[in-house]
């Protein structure tokens, strides 16, 4: 570190142990936790529910509640132990020098106070400045978090703005008094994918622009990869691995970390040839943790007498600097070995068409009882929840329905299941029209052949009844079992099918874990010989390691029984892994549908393209484009005219998008896109996600010597393809065959200055010998390092000799403003070069 004040860590946790005191006695929530956050650094904490990651955040805030206490170790903020601070001092620090952003934005804002009051309060309390001064600074900050029209926003109440905007306001509030440390506890979990992408972009930017250190808590490895420099993996109250993002993602040294990566669907995973590998067993309860390694009972490399003797401590990984792991046997494990083989299966061959949806429409009538509506005569209007849905599903096929909130996927499920009847069109199941028949008028056999798996495992089972009685009730409703004995027998068979012990029939839902409940939900859905199963995000509420097991089970059963599955989801990674065909919906309309491979490779619908780029992927070797959609999701109550996506579309071609609903273009092989873009333009798109294998072919020359994997994310920044520019007047046939740059398409200004680049000093295409670790410059993360490498900067002295022209070029390539920082880089690089 160059600057002297850069040497003090902002936050240092040394052997911190935290316990909760409950009726059952002392429960150790976190044990022996170490963490060092340097200025400007972003550290991720990742782990499953109950691993203690939020407890750590609360402990840092010294805000443990009545029954929690830090029982050991020290937490130092700017070199001072926070445990010795008085309540007064702590109050001073909270919200001004350490701020926190929580998961649920609506819960962090006071619904009865104006945003102005809430923002100003922070400044007035902590800095004692006048109201006008505070308002001025608040508006600046709202502008800095890229909220449109901050003055108007200041005089709004929280409920008047959207969820994404609320979370930006919360982040602005946290940054107002320029904190040294920002704690983010799952800040995007409650948001839609495309909105999340915008907030993540903002978070990435914060440490660069404000020099704020961050601790980012998440269960999503992909998000951590996008935002953080270092990462701590927690399991059952302990940090099990700590290192830079690249170390942990590419060269993990803890079996749990590897298990996590094996159980999330990454591009390239295939449910037939390379199925996900779940981690067996369950997270131990805090008071039932084993001796020695907490992960021992679930670990494939467990060795009796080594792993279960004494509590383990963190040790340095010998080969990597700054990489620590809590595993006794990490040196004895073959990390290069192929991932454990799960049972593979052959792809099912699809049978006849089971389900046909033809032009299905569902409108809701909304009554407006206001006086204004009465006078204007518009007392009732229709909300088009589903408009002209048109697709079919074959036997044993998985069709994924993808979309964000308000896209109409739940309404569609309701019509399928008969909870609502269609306004128009047809839904044909096995040659029988069911769209107009409500569930009470369907025969038991019809009801049984169309069943549903629900999202929330904690609500899917009635807490008042035993598991067995709930399954057998379904069996008897559908006429599958006639007598009590038969029902019991079949209940047992179903429990066997979902791999649960038979005595679970006598248990109540609260005695089951989330994954087990979801298994019961699956058993219930398949109880009536279902032909079509609608699965509404069945695994999204489960922990990562459990997700894989439940997903695997679900697909196995589906394949075995040749059931058609409609898989409703917003998670495109899971969909890519699971689905045979994908239907992308936006505001009640199908924007694109086709085979999974066709959807995930160009041509795309612009919305699909944005969705794909928004999904965080936990793989450093993957390169993807960043497309951040502007604006918010329109309300289905008041949809835009013309193409529903036109308000946010980065590839909008002109007024035709605002006036006419596009026709559906058939690109062959059942791949249909509803867009005004011409077929050539659609086909000219570049892939959003580039796999390492593609990468090698394209740019073998620029392989980084310091890395084991060619993880060059740079291409994403340099080569966002432009689209036909906004001002193209002739809409129907865009003259521009060659893509022109477009500002709105991406935050990064595209490669529009090839001339300027040539004028720069001659740069190295390859590093001279060993490349320097540019990440040692404060403010440079792994991604920026890759960008710099792409530009030909490999060594400190190169950066140290930057002139104004170079800085201008670099600024063009990077997404943020701020000259000071770049000058600072030069200073630091010079100091580092001298060493």
């Amino acid at each position: 570190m160059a600057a002297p004040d850069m040497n003090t860590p902002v936050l240092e946790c040394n052997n911190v142990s935290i316990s909760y005191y409950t009726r059952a006695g002392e429960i150790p929530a976190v044990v022996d936790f170490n963490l060092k956050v340097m200025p400007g650094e972003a550290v991720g904490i990742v782990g499953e529910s109950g691993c203690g990651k939020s407890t750590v955040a609360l402990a840092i805030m010294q805000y443990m509640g009545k029954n929690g206490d830090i029982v050991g170790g020290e937490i130092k903020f700017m070199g001072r132990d926070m445990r010795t601070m008085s309540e007064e001092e702590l109050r001073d620090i909270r919200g001004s020098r350490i701020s926190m952003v929580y998961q649920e934005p609506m819960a962090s804002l006071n619904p009865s106070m104006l945003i102005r009051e809430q923002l100003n309060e922070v400044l007035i309390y902590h800095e004692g400045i006048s109201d006008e001064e505070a308002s001025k600074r608040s508006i600046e900050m709202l502008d800095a978090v890229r909220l449109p029209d901050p003055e108007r926003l200041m005089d709004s109440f929280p409920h008047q703005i959207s969820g994404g905007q609320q979370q930006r306001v919360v982040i602005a509030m946290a940054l107002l008094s320029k904190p040294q440390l920002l704690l983010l506890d799952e800040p995007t979990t409650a948001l839609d994918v495309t909105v999340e992408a915008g907030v993540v972009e903002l978070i990435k930017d914060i440490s660069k622009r404000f020099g704020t250190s961050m601790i980012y808590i998440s269960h999503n490895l992909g998000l951590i990869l996008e935002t953080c420099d270092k990462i701590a993996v927690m399991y059952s109250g302990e940090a099990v691995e700590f290192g830079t993002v690249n170390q942990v993602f590419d060269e993990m040294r803890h079996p749990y970390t590897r298990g996590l990566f094996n159980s999330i669907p990454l591009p390239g995973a295939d449910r037939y040839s390379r199925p996900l590998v779940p981690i067996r067993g369950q997270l131990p309860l805090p008071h039932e943790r084993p001796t020695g390694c907490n992960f021992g009972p679930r670990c494939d490399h467990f060795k009796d007498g080594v792993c279960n003797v004494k509590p383990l401590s963190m040790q340095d990984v010998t080969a990597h600097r700054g990489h620590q792991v809590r595993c006794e046997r990490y040196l004895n494990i073959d990390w290069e070995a192929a991932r454990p083989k799960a049972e593979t299966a052959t792809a099912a061959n699809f049978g006849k068409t089971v389900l046909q949806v033809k032009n299905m429409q569902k409108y809701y009538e909304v009554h407006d009882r206001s006086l204004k509506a009465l006078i204007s005569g518009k007392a009732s209007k229709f909300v088009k929840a589903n408009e002209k849905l048109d697709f079919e599903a074959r036997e044993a096929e998985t069709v994924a329905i993808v979309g964000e909130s308000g896209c109409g996927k739940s309404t569609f499920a309701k019509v399928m299941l008969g909870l609502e009847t269609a306004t128009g069109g047809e839904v044909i199941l096995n040659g029988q029209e069911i769209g107009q028949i409500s569930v009470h008028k369907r025969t038991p056999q019809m009801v049984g052949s169309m069943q549903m798996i629900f999202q929330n495992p904690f609500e899917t089972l009635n807490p008042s009844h035993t598991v067995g009685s709930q399954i057998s009730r379904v069996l008897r409703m559908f006429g599958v079992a006639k007598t009590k004995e038969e029902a019991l027998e079949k209940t047992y068979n179903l429990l066997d099918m979902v791999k649960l012990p038979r005595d679970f029939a006598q248990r109540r839902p609260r005695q089951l874990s989330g994954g087990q409940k979801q298994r019961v939900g699956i058993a219930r859905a398949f109880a009536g010989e279902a032909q079509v199963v609608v699965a509404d995000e069945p695994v999204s509420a489960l922990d990562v390691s459990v997700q894989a097991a439940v997903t695997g089970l679900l697909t196995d059963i589906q394949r075995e029984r040749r059931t058609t599955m409609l898989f409703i989801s917003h998670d495109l990674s899971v969909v890519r892994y699971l689905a045979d065909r994908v239907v992308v919906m936006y505001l009640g309309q199908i924007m694109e549908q086709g085979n999974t491979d066709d959807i995930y490779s160009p041509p795309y619908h612009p919305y699909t393209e944005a969705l794909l780029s928004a999904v965080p992927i936990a793989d450093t070797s993957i390169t993807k484009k960043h497309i951040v959609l502007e604006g918010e999701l329109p309300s289905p109550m008041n949809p835009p005219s013309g193409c529903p996506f036109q308000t946010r579309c980065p590839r909008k071609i002109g007024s035709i998008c605002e006036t006419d609903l596009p026709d559906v273009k058939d690109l062959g092989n059942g791949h249909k896109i509803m867009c005004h873009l011409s077929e050539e333009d659609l086909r000219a798109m570049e892939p959003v996600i580039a796999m390492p294998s593609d990468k090698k072919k394209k740019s073998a020359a620029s392989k980084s010597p310091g890395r084991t994997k060619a993880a060059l994310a740079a291409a994403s920044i340099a080569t966002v393809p432009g689209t036909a520019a906004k001002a193209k007047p002739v809409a129907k046939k865009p003259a521009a065959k060659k893509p022109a740059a477009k500002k709105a398409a991406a935050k990064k200004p595209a490669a529009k200055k090839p001339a300027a680049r040539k004028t720069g000093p001659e740069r190295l295409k390859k590093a001279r010998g060993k490349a320097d670790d540019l990440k040692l410059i404060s403010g440079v993360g792994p991604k920026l390092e890759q960008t710099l490498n792409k530009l030909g900067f490999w060594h400190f002295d190169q950066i140290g000799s930057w002139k104004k022209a170079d800085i201008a070029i670099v600024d063009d390539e990077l997404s943020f403003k701020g000259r000071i920082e770049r000058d600072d880089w030069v200073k630091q690089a010079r100091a580092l070069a001298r060493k």
Partner: protein
Amino acid sequence: MTDTTAEQTDTPDTATGFARFLAAFGLLRESWVGMIGLFLVSFWVLIAIFVDLLPLQDPLAQTRGAINLAMLTEDKTGVMHWMGTDDRGRDLLARLLHGSRVVLFWSTLATIVAYSVGMIMGVTAGYRGGWWDEIISFIGNVLLSFPQIVLLLVILTAFGPNSNIGVWMNTELGMDKSIVSGALIIVAITFSTAPQVARIVRGIVLDLKTRDYIAAAEVRGEGPLWIMLVELLPNARGPLIVDACLRLGYVIITIALLGFLSLGLPPPDPDWGKMISDGRQWGYNGLNMMLWPAIAISSLVLGLNLLADGLREISLRD
């Protein structure tokens, strides 16, 4: 089919139900308020059940010459009256303890009836919504807008045992006078209490009906009756048990009040409210007669309130 399945649902329910009751008792021990409440309530419940086994005098037997005796005095025959006697020479202790049976029996019955009606109203309004909700809520609001005491007076005077209808029921239908007034008390209390219960239940149901398991039941084609009674109501029981405890206390007060106004159970059955009212006519000399039933009423109601507090306390924890 419905019956057998319900049976199947119930069997494991009761098995673990008792265990859970014990567990709940174990939890209640942590709340000393709840424990005091439980002690007071169980004291009166045990008395009410076993009052026949206690060595008491006949509560209806009038002893000549032993009128308005003070507490701890013997009458001429040498019988000890621990609490004294009333204006007809009846042993107060015996009447008080026998009265607990009357009070607890009718108040529990009235609460159960009021609760059943209220729960059905509430769950229907909450789950069916729309016009069902509008109508049920409207009826409830109308009933709640009457002052409660006026409502009770109207019902009991218009239909009481001394009214035309009451006499007709007594003579033509052969109904005992005490049954007639008991039934009327139940009706009156149902009218005044059920709308309040319905409101609570409706609120809980509005929340519960958005749960996935309700959707699951709808998706498998369950009828509304099944969903309301089997899927929804059992899950509303937590807050309802606490409320029922409090409500039972109010009902006891109401019955005592009716007794005091001579609209309660007909004499000569001992009724705490009536006992106070009897003492009132004697002014200072009747203090002894009023003191004991007043203590009895307050201790029982206090016990129920404390028990409700304790239950709420332990249900909020965790």
